[in-house]
């Protein structure tokens, strides 16, 4: 398939990997910020052909991993109301709240439907005028414009039974928080689809202010391998900068129409990231003029707990400061089939993969 197969080509990947082996000196650690990259790195076995001195760690860009316990509790509370339909992307279904999850509520009879887009959720609302339909908005700058378009459509069509529970977030404040927290990395593999919307400029501050290299990267193996090579070159030349690898989708200015949609509907707010705590200005909340679509402002529901800190150390793992076995819950209460922390929920989460392979994922295949 076009723009997919040619970027998975074995020859190209192997050529790039050869160059990486040639120029990589000393131990280098790069953080892939985006969950999509974590997933692709796992799926294509990218670590298996990187030299042992190159380490990749996963950052905060997996919406599953960073979704606050309190947000799940809110969604669970909402789903227990009479005549409510919860619409959500499939990702969130298994994320644990304090004592329940959407999966669990669905088993107990709640009407929870997986949708592919906000517009599908809106269609469900139009088709069920006697129900309140709540859309769980998760995701970063890539996803938020779609939710914005959906809210505007709901306003235009005067759909009065459609509501949003927003956990939308934006990327740069979280990346800055990680840097300030003292994470020990040599550069960022930056999220290509976030940048397709925002433009490359949002990462410019990182090399300037923190002397860390950034490469905005696509999601195929050729893209990721090339980006690692670019980051190593930056390190070798002591010249950290913000480069675009994913040129076929990312420009300097990004998608102006999408940014406008987002700005019309959302304003930034402080947001809680699982494992990171509150990061100022990192969330997106509906502007006042769209308050009627805000589930939290439009009706009340019980929320089991607004606490976000559990005994798990997902946060320190996500920040690259600790390893999964350091956690008192790892492998005991918290296993892939019964996850407590978000790093165990996601199939590519650090704890999940560590549990499955004892972290031997990238060697011992012969």
């Amino acid at each position: 398939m076009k723009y997919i197969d040619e970027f998975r080509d074995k020859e190209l990947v192997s050529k790039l990997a050869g160059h990486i082996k040639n120029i990589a000196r000393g131990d280098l650690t790069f953080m892939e910020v985006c969950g999509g990259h974590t997933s692709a790195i796992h799926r294509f076995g990218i670590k298996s052909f990187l030299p042992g001195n190159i380490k990749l760690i996963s950052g905060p860009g997996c919406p599953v991993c960073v979704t606050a316990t309190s947000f799940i509790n809110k969604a669970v509370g909402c789903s227990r109301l009479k005549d409510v339909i919860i619409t959500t992307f499939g990702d969130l279904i298994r994320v644990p709240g304090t004592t329940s999850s959407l999966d669990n509520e669905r088993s107990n009879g709640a009407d929870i439907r997986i949708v592919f887009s906000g517009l599908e959720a809106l269609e469900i609302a139009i088709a069920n005028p006697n129900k309140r339909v709540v859309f769980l908005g998760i995701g970063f700058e890539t996803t938020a414009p779609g939710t914005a378009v959906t809210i505007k459509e709901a306003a235009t069509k005067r759909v009065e039974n459609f509501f949003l529970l927003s956990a939308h977030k934006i990327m740069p404040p979280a990346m800055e928080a990680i840097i300030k927290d003292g994470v020990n990395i040599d550069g960022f593999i930056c999220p290509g689809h976030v940048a397709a919307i925002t433009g490359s400029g949002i990462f410019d501050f990182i090399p300037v202010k923190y002397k860390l290299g950034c490469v905005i990267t696509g999601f195929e193996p050729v893209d990721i391998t090339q980006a690692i090579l670019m980051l190593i070159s930056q390190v070798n030349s002591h010249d950290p900068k913000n480069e675009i690898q994913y040129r076929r989708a990312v420009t300097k200015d990004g998608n102006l129409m999408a940014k406008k949609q987002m700005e019309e509907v959302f304003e930034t707010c402080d947001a809680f990231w699982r494992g990171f705590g509150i990061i100022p200005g990192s969330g997106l909340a509906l502007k006042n003029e769209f308050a009627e679509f805000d589930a939290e402002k439009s009706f009340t529901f019980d929320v089991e707990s607004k606490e976000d800190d559990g005994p798990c150390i997902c946060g320190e793992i996500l920040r690259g400061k600790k390893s999964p076995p350091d956690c008192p819950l790892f492998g005991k209460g918290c296993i892939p089939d019964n996850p407590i922390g978000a790093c165990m929920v996601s199939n590519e989460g650090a704890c999940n993969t560590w549990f499955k392979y004892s972290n031997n994922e990238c060697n011992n295949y012969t």
Partner: protein
Amino acid sequence: MSVTITLNQGSGGKQTHRLIENVFVKRFGIAEPLTDSALVRNRGMDIVFTTDSFVVDPLFFPGGNIGKLAVCGTVNDLAVSGAVPVCLSAAFIIEEGLPEGDLVEIVQSMADEAEKADVKIVTGDTKVVEKGKCDKLFITTSGTGTINPDQWHISIGERIKPGDKLIVNGSLGNHALAVLGARNQLSFRTPVISDCASLNHLIGKVLKISGNIHFMRDLTRGGLATVLNELAAMIGTGISINEGSVPIDDPVKGLCEMLGFDPLYLANEGKILIVARAGDESKVLDILKSDPLGKDSHIIGEIMDDRRSRVILNTVSGGKRILEMPSGIQLPRIC
């Protein structure tokens, strides 16, 4: 909170295994390796016996319906054990309100499929339950077949050796996605049709051409990845798979990319894994390819000389990773 059964426990992966082990196996005292069919050896009367329940939403999907599925599924469970299917039973749980025309159409396709597969449906049962007590129609079919003692080893793979070749008889994932598409819940349209088919005649040809078929299994719930992991665990050996050789149709690939699914975990209803002794793979492949139900057959990997039970996937891009046993059902994702 009391523990309840969740959908994940029906997904065919790890959680299903645990349910079967903890609830059924120990109470029924089943000692044999758990295979699709049981070999019953009783006073010189060796038969193969199997049973399967069919629930599918919707009842009709491109390429088949629940009735056709109920016949093919049981025929295939028998055939992959090396048996020749002889007769089936069929039991129906019907929700009141099911249009009679639908039932007739479903039963007719069962009759047609049984004729095609050359098996007889010889006994059955019918229950009608109140609205809401089941979802339109559930069917259970059981089947028996005869088996040549030379084929007993097939279902437990006891002759498998390093170097043996793994073959599948065509592209994977079509059934699962045809059903998902027919549900109309997510807004996509796909030309994918279910591969639902009885494979006993095809398997008969394979067994005739090669006396060195070491294992067969149909790739139903949980897909190829599940069967490979079960096999690796059963024989205590590593298995190596070349991702690029696994046939997958473009529309399936496209849909999987978009929903974040892995086609190797998707259910098939007309696909089998065959393990053949090295040296026999070409004639097996040729005979498969000469049949419409095997025209897209591929050699996808081999049994490794490695005493660790695991499945290693050589990815299209030249990487390697472990192909895991699935856990829970695959959900469409945006990340």
